């Protein structure tokens, strides 16, 4: 019962001020319901009879008529109905999904921080003031966010306000001016945007590295080496920072016997073996399956900056040899992190003014609340009580 009451909320709490009316009705009835004064010549007889009564019964009981009680109850229910009682949609602690835009543009500097930090600050301020106590589920994703992300429990944290305001989701966009800087790199050359023009900087390309952990089958190792040479990606040395691409090979000391597999894509096919399937996630997050065996085992999965290869052995692939190289090169191109400091020209453009909007109330919940039978039942109860008061008062007028 208590939990049920606590789960109620009022759409118009100010209407509860109308509860003063039933209180006033009861008070007035009490005041006006003074017993009539009647002259008698036998007061001494009444006094003797009263003296024989128990003390609690010696005074006239001033009863409020049932019609007045019914009227007061009706008015009270009416006030509650006006206040709009409904089930508390919040109920358990609210969970807010915070989609954090991790596009390169959000990492551009803005004042003394980054665009993303500024947007996070805006969201944090709103969470603190308007959604205190809500739990926040942080999800890092690259914008744009799609229709599936347009939910009333979701906020978008980004740098550029969406072209059209989402119907349900809130958003916090830092905005920010254009940030000139490197916009592309190829080979050893780098291209910078100075705000007006694009300038080539020979030899200015940032150096990228790769690292192989474990053992890769020879065909794959050869393609990786060729791809790295073509892209100017060098093997990571101990003095380097973290590699821009880490390729995880399969371990060779597993106790279980290897499993023969055959797989292929994009015009090539190869036989080989594996000890265990490629993982679907690692400590850095979810991985996308890139290659599976004919019998459905994951052979290769990848994510930003990493590739997991489960092949323990691989025969030379059949089919077009170039197709094998191009296929794997596209995998490495997609997985390697972009050159540090390189942000595409479109990303460096101005992000506009800072803007934000809170999530909109879930229309479904609101519709459910407006159609909540509790308010209707309360109003109906109020009407019935007032009608009952009228019926009770008709035979003998109130007051």
């Amino acid at each position, binding site marked *: 019962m208590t939990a049920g009451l606590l789960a109620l909320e009022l759409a118009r709490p100010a209407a509860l001020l109308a509860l003063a009316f039933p209180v006033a009705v009861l008070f007035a009835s009490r005041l006006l319901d003074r*017993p009539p*004064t009647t002259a008698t010549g036998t007061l001494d007889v009444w006094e003797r009879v009263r003296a024989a009564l128990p003390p609690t019964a010696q005074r006239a009981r001033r009863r409020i008529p049932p019609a007045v009680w019914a009227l007061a109850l009706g008015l009270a229910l009416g006030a509650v109905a006006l206040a709009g009682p409904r089930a508390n949609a919040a109920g358990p602690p609210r969970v807010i999904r915070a989609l954090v835009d991790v596009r390169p543009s959000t990492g551009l500097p803005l004042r003394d921080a980054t665009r993303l930090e500024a947007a996070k600050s805006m969201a944090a301020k709103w969470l603190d003031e308007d959604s205190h106590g809500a739990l926040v589920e942080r999800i890092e994703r690259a914008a744009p966010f799609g229709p599936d992300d347009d939910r009333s429990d979701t906020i978008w944290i980004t740098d550029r306000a969406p072209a059209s305001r989402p119907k349900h989701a809130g958003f916090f966009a830092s905005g920010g001016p254009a940030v000139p800087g490197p916009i592309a790199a190829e080979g050893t050359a780098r291209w910078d945007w100075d705000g007006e023009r694009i300038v080539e900087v020979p030899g200015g390309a940032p150096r990228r590295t790769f690292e192989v952990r474990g053992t890769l089958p020879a065909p794959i190792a050869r393609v990786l080496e060729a791809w790295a040479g073509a892209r100017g990606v060098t093997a990571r040395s101990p003095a380097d920072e973290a590699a821009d691409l880490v390729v995880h090979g399969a371990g060779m000391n597993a106790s279980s016997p290897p499993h023969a597999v055959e797989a292929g894509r994009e015009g090539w096919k190869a036989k080989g073996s594996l000890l265990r399937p490629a993982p679907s996630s690692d400590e850095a997050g979810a991985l996308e399956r890139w290659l599976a065996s004919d019998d459905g085992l994951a052979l290769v999965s990848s994510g930003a900056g990493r590739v997991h290869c489960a092949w323990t052995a691989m025969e030379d692939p059949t089919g077009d040899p170039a197709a094998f190289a191009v296929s794997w090169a596209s995998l490495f191109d997609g997985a390697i992190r972009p050159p540090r400091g390189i942000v595409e020209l479109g990303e460096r453009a101005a992000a506009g003014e800072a803007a934000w909007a809170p999530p909109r109330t879930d229309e479904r919940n609101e519709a459910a609340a407006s159609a909540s039978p509790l308010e209707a039942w309360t109003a109906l109860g109020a009407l019935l009580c007032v009608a009952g008061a009228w019926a009770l008062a008709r035979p003998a007028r109130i007051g």
Partner: protein
Amino acid sequence: MPSQLGVGSEFVGHRPYAPGDDLRALDWDLLARSSRPWVRVARREAGERWLVRLDASASMGVGPPGKLQRAAEVAAGIAVWGSRSGAAVCVSVAGGEGGPREFRVRRRSEIAGLLAFLGRLRAGGGSGALPPARALAHVSRVFVVGDLRDLRPELVLPLRGRGRSLSLIQILAPLEVAPAPGGSVEWWDPERGGRVSLALDPALVAAYERELEREVEAWREIAARHGVPFGCFLSDRTFEEILERSRPA
């Protein structure tokens, strides 16, 4: 007592028969002619002096119907009877607005003046003291008409004396005898000013009625023991009914 009245050696007229009258005084010839019983009135009755003590205290204003209204009508009826019998009747008002007063009726022609006197009466104040002994000299009949609420039998009964009869006529309002149960009421005593608020549930009303009945019965028993006619009447009865049942012999 009634047997001693209404008989005498010198006939002066007739009056209606009342229960208790000596049948020897009944005029059988007149009964045969009028089909109503009449008794012969002797000279001794005709020379009597009657005193009617009419209570006009504030409690007599209780009603409806007003107790004073009915009591005044009864007093006037007694005066009419007395004048018919040739008795001199003094209506003495106890209490009432303006203090104690009296009106004497010696001839039937003075009845109109008595009615006017009674018509001006207004209930108020206390009922005051009973008539002193000197006021009762040569009075052969005393009538006490009122609610008797402020009188006690031991004070009233001495009004009866040698050669002087006493009749007690108590008049109470219906709401005093049988208050309607239900609801609450604040009872107010117009004489003493006291107030009592009570919820009139049936049990309480029944207890009140028993207590009042006990009081009235006490009056009736004491009066009967002393040979004093006593009657308790509601003010909603007509004065003719009251007179019929308490008519002097």
